[in-house]
C-alpha cells in the first residue's frame, strides 16, 4: 500500500480508542469497538485524540500512513461515531443565545477587568507560559484558516465572496512569507519551539484538541456550515483585542520581533475581518438561508464554550506553577527553565 513517507508522527495513544485508531492507520489492528466509542467521555483525551487522528487524514496525514485511508469506509464510520459523541455533548452543554444578534452583541463588549488567558499572559505571563501557549495553539495556527476553507464550496454569493476574501488575507494575499501559518512558525522560532507540523500534538491537552476538532467538525460537514460561519465570526470578533494583549505579553517578555509581529498583525487584520464576517458572511448567509440562524448562534457560543474550557485548564495549571503540557518541551536552550516549571 502506498503510504506517506514524510509528515508528522502518529501521536502516542491516550486510551483504547486512540490506540485502536492509530493501529488501524498503520494496518496493525482493528478499529475500536462501537460500544467502546459509545461510552467514551466526549471531551476526554482518548476520544478527542482519536477524532484528531481521523481529521488529520484530511490535512497532512501521518508518516507511514496511507493517504488513501482518508476515505476508508471503516475510518469514516468510526469518525462518525466519535463526532456524534462530541457534537451531541456540544449541543447539550453549550448555552446558546436566542439570536445571532445577541450572540454577536455579547462578543462586542470588552470586559474592563477581563480574567482570561490573554489578560493573564499580558499582566503576569512568563516566557515558559508563552511557550506552552504557543506550542498548544500551534495545532491550529500551523494550519491557520485551513479548517474554514472547507466551507467555501458550501456558500455562494455575498457570503462566498467575503469568506474567500478573508481567507485570501489569512493565506498571505498570495505571498508565501505572509501566510499566517508561516507568521506563526516565525513566532515559534522566536520562542525556541520546533515548528514542524504536528510536532506538539502529544503535548496538547484534551481541551486544546477539542477547540481544533470543533473547527474540523464544522468545516467538513455541509450540514454544519452555519455553525462554521458562527465559529469563524466568533474567532475574528474576539481576536483583535485578544491579540493586542498577547502582543503586549510578547513585548514585555522580550519574546522577539516575529512573536510580536504575529499578534500585531492580527490586531489590525482582524479588526477588518470582523467587519466583513459580520456584515458580509453572516448577513449574506442568513439572507440566503435564514433557517441557519440557530446554527450560526450555536457556532458562536460553542466556540466560547470550548475556548473557556481550554482557558480555564491553562490557568488552573499555571496558577499552581504547573506545566499545562502533557509532555515537556524539548528545547535544550530552555532546559533549565523547563526543569523548574514542568511536572
Amino acid at each position, binding site marked *: 500500500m502506498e503510504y506517506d513517507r514524510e509528515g508528522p508522527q502518529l501521536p502516542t495513544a491516550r486510551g483504547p480508542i486512540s490506540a485502536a485508531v492509530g493501529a488501524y492507520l498503520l494496518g496493525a489492528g482493528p478499529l475500536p469497538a462501537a460500544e467502546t466509542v459509545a461510552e467514551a467521555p466526549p471531551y476526554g483525551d482518548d476520544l478527542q485524540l482519536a477524532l484528531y487522528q481521523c481529521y488529520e487524514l484530511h490535512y497532512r496525514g501521518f508518516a507511514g500512513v496511507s493517504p488513501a485511508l482518508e476515505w476508508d469506509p471503516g475510518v469514516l464510520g468510526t469518525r462518525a461515531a466519535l463526532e456524534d459523541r462530541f457534537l451531541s455533548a456540544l449541543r447539550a452543554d453549550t448555552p446558546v443565545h436566542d439570536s445571532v444578534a445577541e450572540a454577536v452583541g455579547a462578543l462586542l463588549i470588552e*470586559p474592563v477587568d*477581563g480574567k482570561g488567558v490573554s489578560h493573564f499572559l499580558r499582566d503576569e505571563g512568563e516566557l515558559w507560559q508563552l511557550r506552552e501557549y504557543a506550542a498548544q495553539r500551534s495545532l491550529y495556527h500551523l494550519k491557520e484558516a485551513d479548517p474554514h476553507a472547507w466551507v467555501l464550496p458550501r456558500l455562494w454569493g455575498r457570503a462566498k465572496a467575503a469568506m474567500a476574501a478573508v481567507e485570501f488575507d489569512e493565506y498571505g494575499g498570495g505571498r508565501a512569507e505572509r501566510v499566517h501559518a508561516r507568521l506563526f512558525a516565525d513566532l515559534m522560532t522566536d520562542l525556541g519551539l520546533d515548528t514542524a507540523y504536528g510536532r506538539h500534538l502529544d503535548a496538547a491537552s484534551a481541551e486544546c484538541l477539542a477547540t481544533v476538532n470543533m473547527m474540523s467538525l464544522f468545516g467538513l460537514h455541509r450540514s454544519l456550515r452555519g455553525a462554521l460561519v458562527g465559529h469563524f465570526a*466568533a474567532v475574528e470578533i474576539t481576536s483583535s483585542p485578544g491579540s493586542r494583549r498577547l502582543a503586549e505579553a510578547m513585548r514585555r517578555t522580550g519574546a522577539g520581533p516575529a512573536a510580536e509581529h504575529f*499578534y500585531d498583525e492580527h490586531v*489590525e487584520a482582524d479588526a477588518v475581518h470582523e467587519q466583513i464576517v459580520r456584515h458580509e458572511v453572516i448577513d449574506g448567509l442568513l439572507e440566503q438561508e435564514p433557517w441557519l440562524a440557530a446554527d450560526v448562534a450555536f457556532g458562536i457560543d460553542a466556540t466560547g464554550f470550548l*475556548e473557556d474550557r481550554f482557558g480555564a485548564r491553562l490557568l488552573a495549571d499555571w496558577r499552581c506553577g504547573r506545566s499545562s503540557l502533557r509532555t515537556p518541551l524539548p528545547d535544550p536552550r530552555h532546559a533549565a527553565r523547563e526543569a523548574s516549571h514542568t511536572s
Partner: protein
Amino acid sequence: MPNSPSDAPRRVKVQRRGPLLVEGPVEVELEDGTTVSSDRFRVALCTCRRSRRYPWCDTSHRPRSSGSGDGPAAKG
C-alpha cells in the same frame, strides 16, 4: 480586491458605530503631513480616535463592561 475592475468607483462603507471601511490598498495622509499605507483588500479606518494604531481600527470603539472573561480565541 484583486479582481475589482480598476475603473469602478471605490466603495466606502460608513457606519454609525465602527470604522470606515475602504477598499484597499490605501494611502492615508495624517495631520502632521506624513503618510501611511495599507495594502489589505479592505481597510478599516478608525473614526472614534481611540485606536492605538491610528488611523487603522483596532476595535477600541467597542463598548466596555465590568464583566470578565476572554471570549473565544486569541485569534483566527
